[in-house]
């Protein structure tokens, strides 16, 4: 069985008027199938309101399905007994760095998760130190989070999740509120965790540059998974992506335009180096 397995997952937001009659139903997830293997780096792309955040919240059982099934690490999310085990094993990082830091000192915030699951005190200290080191924030352990940059705050949030020693981290648009440097910091930290510690990563984003290194990408629109595959296979379908309100990285777009203009370069160019090589071959 895969680490995460969703079958025909449905989530409906039901709005009721004052008399409790159903006013409208918004289907945020519509028959979603998702398969994630242990250790994979998965990206979920979609415009705002496509349902990708709703999907993320299901993986951590912050929401439960209106229909279909979702298994995380062999546990059925519909079974309330599995709740804490799943949340511990599948950590979550949210978009707004300020709204997920609970404590007023960095190290105490990182300790919040382990404290909740009853980790003994000496072990908490070890985990806090280790987690802060792996996101490069150990220097700031005694600082107040208020004075840190957005990228630093998000790395603290990641450390807070790591301290629960999860097998998987779900990041729900972790870079949307950051500047380019902050974005780079966070992505590097995430990629490193995936490569070096084998932590399964599910990155939800609408920045196309961030999915280049993913193993597989899912594209969502209107609550449905509309495309999936390697970044390369996806980025060769520029027009389809545009129809889902998305974009491709500038280099990919340039390669696509050059191809359209008649230059014989391969489809789905992802990086500058690849385009340089392709053009040199032609020269």
């Amino acid at each position, binding site marked *: 069985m895969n680490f995460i397995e969703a079958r025909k997952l449905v989530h409906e937001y039901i709005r009721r008027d004052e008399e409790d009659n159903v006013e409208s139903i918004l289907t945020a997830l519509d028959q979603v199938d998702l398969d994630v293997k242990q250790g994979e780096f998965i990206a979920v792309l979609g415009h*705002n309101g496509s349902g990708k955040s709703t999907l993320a919240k299901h993986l951590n059982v912050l929401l439960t399905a209106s229909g279909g099934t979702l298994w995380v690490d062999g546990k059925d999310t519909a079974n309330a007994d599995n709740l804490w085990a799943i949340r511990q094993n599948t950590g979550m990082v949210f978009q707004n760095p300020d709204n997920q830091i609970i404590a007023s000192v960095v190290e105490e915030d990182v300790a919040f998760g382990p404290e909740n699951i009853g980790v003994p005190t000496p072990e908490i200290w070890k985990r806090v130190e280790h987690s802060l080191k792996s996101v490069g924030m150990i220097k700031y352990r005694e600082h107040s989070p208020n004075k840190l940059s957005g990228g630093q705050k998000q790395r603290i949030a990641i450390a807070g999740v790591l301290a629960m020693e999860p097998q998987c981290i779900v990041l729900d648009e972790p870079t949307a509120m950051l500047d380019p440097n902050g974005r780079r910091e966070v992505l590097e930290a995430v990629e490193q965790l995936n490569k070096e510690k084998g932590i399964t990563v599910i990155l939800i984003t609408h920045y196309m540059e961030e999915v280049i290194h993913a193993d597989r990408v899912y594209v969502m629109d209107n609550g449905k998974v509309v495309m999936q595959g390697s970044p390369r296979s996806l980025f060769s379908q520029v027009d389809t992506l545009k129809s889902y*309100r998305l974009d491709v990285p*500038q280099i990919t777009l340039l390669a696509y335009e050059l191809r359209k203009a*008649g230059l014989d370069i391969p489809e789905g160019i992802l990086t500058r180096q690849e385009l*340089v090589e392709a*053009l*040199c071959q032609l*020269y």
Partner: protein
Amino acid sequence: MSIILDKVNYIYSEKTAYEIHALKNINLKIEDGEFIGVIGHTGSGKSTLIQHLNGLMHASSGGIYYNGQDIYDEDYDRKKLRGKVGLVFQYPEHQLFETTIFADVSFGPKNQGFSKKEAELKAFTALRSVGLPEEYWYRSPFELSGGQKRRVAIAGVLAMEPEVLILDEPTAGLDPRGRDEILDQVAKLHEERHMTIILVSHSMEDVAKYVERLIVMNQGSVMLDGTPGEVFAHYQELEAVGLAAPQVTYLMHDLRKRGILVPGTATTLEEAKEAILQIFKK
């Protein structure tokens, strides 16, 4: 019409341990009808700079002149200045408060002292110009999507009919289409109404595509000032301060290093495409 900054300094928490020299000796001249981009990483002083332009912040020293008039003059009406130099803050949708979109957009002109009718006429025009369909106008602003909310907030500033429009990262947090829609709308305001636009952005690709003049801020000073082509030619200096040039600019350099002599310094996709095709279509 112009804005002139003459040796402007701004110091936060002056004479305390937390003193920060946020603006250092800024001299700038912003001409009527320019489309200017301001880049710089967080803390470079760009947000402080734009809040000086509409008089929200008062320089510690130096002078600012709007159309030749000293805005720090005692009898200068700085409240009026805020109507002439419209400032759209980051995440402007967080300032919405009225029960309907239309009422929210009328807030600015009403504050300027226009009658209800005049204010509504201005709100009407402003909502039109950001392209929000009329069927939404009398709904609560809180029912809209993020991108739509932002357009309403921009309309709220446009309704004051400013001569200069400053936008602080208007695309932050929007998806690619939402980003393009906002920036295209802004470009249209510039083209059709010759409005002076100052766009603060983190995206080198965006500024390269839209602006005519680019100001780079670093540690409270103006580090570079010129056309995007001129500025991005200094890509090594930009990198040294944690900034970068657009990807295509790097591509041009890489190609030249490999002996493919593409002409010019491309900063946008179109320029790069043309330059490459010139070489390869021979």
